[in-house]
């Protein structure tokens, strides 16, 4: 099963690059000119995201470097332990929507410390795999088209992330048992 999916992933882009221009040609599209026409907007689209990304990444960077995370963890771990969520994964849960790299660093640290086949190791692996860098995606996608008011998408994204956390704890406990 994994082999099939992995193979599919490897072939997907080469196939798109083969099929799209061929079909376009067969349907009478001037392939080279059309490609250039479309690609023209690339530079502007990428550069337009700069102010948005700068704003968001500066805030995230200050938050990360200041040690605010440790304060948050110290404040919230008693509450988390009380409701049955292991506090060790809290830094990961907080960082995951903000910074993909930082979250991955925390995840590998937990895996290294507790072992990849421990409960915490499996839990943090599941959390890393099932979540996305919500704030980065929102900033980048909205920034590229000049959207400044995000309306309910921040609450929506964070709700989804929180539900992933709860689901991960539950599923990993049920499948692997919380002992190991």
């Amino acid at each position: 099963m994994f082999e099939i999916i992995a193979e599919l992933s490897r072939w997907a882009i080469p196939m798109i690059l083969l099929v799209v221009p061929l079909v376009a040609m067969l349907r009478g599209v001037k392939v080279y000119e059309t490609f250039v026409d479309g690609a023209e907007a690339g530079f502007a689209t990428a550069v337009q995201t700069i102010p948005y990304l700068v704003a968001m990444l500066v805030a995230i960077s200050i938050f990360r470097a200041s040690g605010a995370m440790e304060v948050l963890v110290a404040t919230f771990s008693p509450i988390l332990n009380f409701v049955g969520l292991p506090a060790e994964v809290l830094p990961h849960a907080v960082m995951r929507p903000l910074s993909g790299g930082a979250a991955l660093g925390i995840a590998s640290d937990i895996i290294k410390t507790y072992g990849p086949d421990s409960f915490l190791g499996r839990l943090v692996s599941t959390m890393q795999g099932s979540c996305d860098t919500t704030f980065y995606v929102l900033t980048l996608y909205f920034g590229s088209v000049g959207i400044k008011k995000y309306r309910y998408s921040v609450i929506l994204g964070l709700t989804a992330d929180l539900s992933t956390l709860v689901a991960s704890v539950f599923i990993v406990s049920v499948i692997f048992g919380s002992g190991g």
Partner: protein
Amino acid sequence: MVNLVWLGMIVFGIIVAGAKGNIDVVTKAALDGANNAVKISFSLIAIITFWLGIMKLAEEAGLVRALAWLVRPVMRFLFPSVPKDHPAMGAMVMNLSANILGLGNAATPMGLIAMRELQKLNQGRVSASDAMCTFLALNTSCVTLIPTTIIGIRLLYGSSDPTDIVGPTIMATSFSMVVAIVVDRILRLLYSGKGR
């Protein structure tokens, strides 16, 4: 909400840094963050330009429309405000498929193309449309069939079965996707007509 989160991270960060006696890190962190942001944007120029070209070809060849037509029932349900067979539908499907296959390099440009199409329907407003909120919720809670990076790390630290978290990952992310779709519907109703 985004204003609050943004301000909160900066204010809380500076207060903590000050209280811990390492206020110096703030200035450096701010510049590092800005630097990193510009680097990311510049690294996007290449892949966005490339995929915009390919997508224009796919559009002219009628392939985007065909793709949108194929998955019409699902997309009509998720995005009632987007006209059927609109190029935005095709681009969103491409983005979500690339995400599922774990093709990060292709997923981002296709997502940005989808946003461009959605922004045309949004008549250039600076406020997010319903369809954009739904699309981003799906995008960030979307399933990745093989989380390659974390499997690599598990392998590195001697896991006896590095891929045994794939099943749980797919279950967790499917659950959060359902939650995202349901909460999106509720919030859409609550926010309808507000703040546009």
